[in-house]
């Protein structure tokens, strides 16, 4: 009898995601998703509070994301599973939290993918001239989303190799632009003293700085996406903290350089209005070569972001299926390419539909809101993680310093950001919270009956403290 059961179980060939990634791929995933935020988005903080507010926010939100990166690195180097924060929530808080976190992830990444496709179409339209109709505009969106989905379908190694190359080019473009405008010689090209004066630095005072939190998120939104690669990296305990922290350092430098270049070339009224701050900075230097370089880099940054978002959204959706939080059908892995192919295919038409009907502002706000909900969870999650499994009880790939200070800083900054979003997008914030409440009720009263409760907790950990 036992032999028959063994034979039957070994007859089913096991197919799982492929462990082929290293720290460079983790960096490419995190920075790739985020870097587009330097090319567009952050600058709307200047519209809310002036150019100086955009700089203050760059560093304050940098603190928020450094906390996110540190907390994420500790938990994910221990809970190394596809789904990232979803798997963390499941093991540390519980199924309902996990379901919500997975929804935040899927919406944050899918809406970011949609925003990137719209951005690329808008950028090309601005340069295409006469004859570029709605058919062509939609053609750009469809091409971006479908080609990147096919790349993701084909394999994670190729997907993130491509992301590494295009992210590196887009980042180098910012460095090249920085040195081209002679930052060591104010007045030659850059005119920071004329653009930012004591009178216009904070035109709306400190409430403007608070309001600017909304768009400041865009400097770093998505760096936490590195955790989605947890099940595909060769050494999660080493690669995830290393890749995530290296990515955060890269972005802090990139964000500061971007602010310095743009703030020195544009008045705050224009900086807070344009969709292309770095491309406009390239134009304002008067060099056609720099303008072309920034045009190409804008498109590459948006492509890298969309590519990483497809990767991450599909893994979060796949994880939900694997635990039967959604139909198990979604948890299929391609036996040859070793990718969650059904999840990729399922999310493809959804992204296309949103990209065809939504506008950029709505898509970005939806993405930011989902991100902030997720960061709020992370601050609670790490406190519970340290309470249930204190240091020394389980092996951690990385232990973040100054606990619980990063969690407290993260929570406070999230609360401030909710207030900032409420100031500008109160209706969307309310609608979104209602949406997540309805989904939670659906999960609790209907879907959870299909979940195999014992199977979902997979980590070989000792019993938590207090249980």
């Amino acid at each position, binding site marked *: 009898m036992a032999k028959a059961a063994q034979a039957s179980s070994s007859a*089913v060939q096991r197919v*799982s995601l492929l462990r082929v990634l290293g720290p460079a791929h983790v960096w490419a995933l995190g920075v790739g998703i985020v870097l587009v935020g330097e090319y567009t988005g952050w600058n709307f903080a200047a519209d809310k509070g002036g150019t100086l507010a955009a700089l203050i926010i760059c560093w304050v939100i940098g603190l928020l994301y450094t906390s996110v990166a540190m907390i994420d690195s500790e938990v994910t180097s221990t809970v190394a599973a596809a789904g990232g924060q979803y798997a963390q929530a499941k093991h540390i808080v519980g199924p309902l939290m996990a379901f919500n976190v997975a929804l935040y992830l899927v919406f944050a990444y899918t809406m970011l993918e949609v925003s990137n496709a719209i951005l690329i179409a808008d950028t090309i339209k601005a340069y295409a001239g006469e004859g570029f109709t709605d058919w062509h505009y939609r*053609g750009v969106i469809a091409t971006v989303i*479908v080609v990147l989905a096919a790349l993701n379908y084909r394999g994670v190694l190729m997907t993130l190799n491509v992301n590494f190359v295009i992210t590196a080019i887009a980042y180098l473009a910012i460095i090249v632009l920085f040195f081209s405008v002679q930052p060591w010689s104010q007045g030659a090209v850059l005119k920071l003293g004329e653009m930012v004066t004591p009178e216009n630095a904070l035109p709306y005072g400190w409430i403007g700085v608070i309001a600017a939190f909304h768009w400041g998120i865009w400097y770093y939104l998505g760096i936490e996406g590195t955790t989605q690669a947890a099940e595909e990296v060769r050494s999660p305990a080493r690669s995830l903290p290393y890749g995530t922290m290296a990515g955060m350092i890269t972005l802090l430098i990139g964000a500061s350089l971007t602010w310095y270049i743009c703030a020195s070339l544009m008045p705050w009224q224009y900086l807070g209005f344009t969709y292309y701050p770095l491309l406009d900075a390239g134009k304002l230097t008067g060099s056609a070569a720099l303008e072309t370089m920034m045009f190409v880099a804008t498109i590459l940054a948006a492509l890298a972001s969309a590519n990483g978002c497809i990767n991450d959204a599909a893994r979060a959706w796949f994880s939900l299926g*694997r635990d039967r939080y959604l139909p198990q059908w979604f948890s299929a892995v391609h036996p040859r390419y070793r990718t969650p192919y059904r999840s990729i295919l399922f999310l493809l038409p959804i992204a296309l539909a949103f990209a065809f009907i939504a506008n950029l502002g709505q898509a970005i706000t939806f993405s930011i809101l989902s991100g902030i909900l997720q960061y709020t969870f992370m601050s609670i999650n790490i406190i519970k993680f340290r309470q249930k499994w204190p240091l020394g009880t389980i092996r951690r790939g990385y232990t973040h310093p100054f606990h619980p200070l990063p969690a407290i800083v993260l929570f406070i900054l999230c609360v401030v950001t909710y207030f900032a979003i409420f100031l500008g997008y109160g209706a969307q914030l309310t609608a979104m919270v209602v949406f997540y409440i309805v989904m939670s009720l659906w999960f609790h009263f209907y879907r959870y009956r299909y979940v195999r409760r014992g199977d979902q907790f*997979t980590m070989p*950990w000792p019993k938590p403290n207090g249980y």
Partner: protein
Amino acid sequence: MWITVVNIGWAVSALLVAWMVYDWFRIDSTYSEATLTSSREGEIEAASEKHKL
């Protein structure tokens, strides 16, 4: 130039969608559902890490 590129983009997108859908049906009809959905979270951790310090 952009108009030509976008028209090619439409064609490439249609081909890629056709390829993915074809491959999806081919894989689903070749392998059993049990094999395709056999991935389990934490397999490697369970085998290699006992969390003994």
